């Protein structure tokens, strides 16, 4: 790979705003994006990416390749937490290991959105179904995590003993998944009619909103660097190597099923990225 391309990539506005946020937090500036503004930004990003994914899906249609890709994604969302669990279990108790496993199985919407922005900017095409894939990968990881925690936990009053109804509810009906899939469906239905008139809202400000959102992510990430240090060498190593390994698997699988470059990158991002969200129903005291 060309080094100047990497630098060029790092020197684009969204990434620089992320670094600005991180720098601001690092020098303890009082710069902050107060709640619920980040929520507004993330609702916008999810709606936008879902809607455009739907429009592209409507134009591209559901082919065998698309279905294979979706299958691969769900499989990875089931498998990644499984092996992550057995590795992390070497050092941690079952409940925490399950929570971490679910984390690595699920996807980071921020990373996905940033990758999408990168592809658009580089004019590399990708399929609208990758957005659906992201929505589909969130839930299985949570369910696998909870199953693992239960199989290894004897305290039936702890948080892993949520009733199954509640587990599935949190896994499949969390707000981000609903908004993403809903916007995807709406985009697919209204592709011919509304895509143009909504472009001024859904497409044009996308990159700018992403900048503002990544500024906040930078602030948050830098504040949490301390947590990373506190988590010890073993987890630190895992946190660095696991995403890379998963991303490489993603690229391998994409080659195998003959996906295009854009879809391959997104699959790598989906496999490699991890999300805090999925921890929540699993966290222990």
């Amino acid at each position, binding site marked *: 790979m060309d080094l100047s391309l990497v630098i060029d990539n790092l020197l684009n506005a969204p990434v620089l705003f992320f670094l600005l946020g991180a720098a601001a937090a690092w020098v303890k500036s009082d710069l902050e994006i107060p*709640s619920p503004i980040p929520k507004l930004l*993330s609702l916008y990003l999810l709606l936008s990416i879902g809607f455009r994914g739907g429009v592209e899906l409507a134009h591209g249609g559901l082919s065998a390749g698309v279905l294979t890709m979706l299958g691969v994604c769900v499989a990875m969302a089931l498998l990644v937490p499984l092996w992550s669990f057995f590795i992390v279990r070497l050092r941690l108790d079952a409940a925490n290991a399950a929570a971490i496993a679910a984390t690595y199985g699920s996807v980071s919407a*921020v990373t996905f959105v940033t990758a999408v922005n990168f592809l658009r900017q580089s004019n590399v095409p990708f399929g609208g179904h990758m957005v659906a894939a992201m929505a589909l990968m969130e839930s299985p990881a949570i369910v696998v995590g909870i199953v693992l925690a239960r199989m290894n936990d004897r305290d039936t009053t702890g*948080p892993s003993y949520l009733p199954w109804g509640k587990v599935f509810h949190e896994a499949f009906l969390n707000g981000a998944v609903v908004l993403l899939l809903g916007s995807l469906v709406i985009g697919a239905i209204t592709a011919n009619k509304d895509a143009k008139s909504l472009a001024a809202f859904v497409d044009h400000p996308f990159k700018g909103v992403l900048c503002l959102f990544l500024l906040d992510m930078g602030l948050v990430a830098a504040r*949490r660097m301390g947590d990373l240090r506190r988590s010890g060498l073993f987890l630190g190593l895992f946190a660095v190597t696991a995403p890379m390994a998963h991303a490489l698997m993603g690229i391998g699988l994409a080659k195998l099923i003959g996906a295009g470059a854009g879809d391959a990158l997104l699959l790598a991002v989906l496999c490699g990225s991890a*999300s*805090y969200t999925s921890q929540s129903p699993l966290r222990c005291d």
Partner: protein
Amino acid sequence: MKSVKRFEIIIERLHARDVTDALERAGVTGYSLLRDVTGTGDRGDRAGDELTDVFRNCCVIVAVPVEAADEVVESIRPLLKAYGGVCLVSDALWVNH
């Protein structure tokens, strides 16, 4: 003015509905909710960094008749056990109207 017990329950926002459901089961008909509470406790800082508000706290404030206080405590305790959080109980007077 009548004597009441004032409850202040700080818990993850995700579980706000569990708390209010538990309160309703315990026969409480009125409560107030502050949605935007952050904090630090045994389980680290709040986050709010992903696309849901999973790690944000909320604060439920409830005044109940003194004789109902024990039942409310018992209805809240399992939630604190499962999800962490804090429940403070104090004495207060309720201004009749």
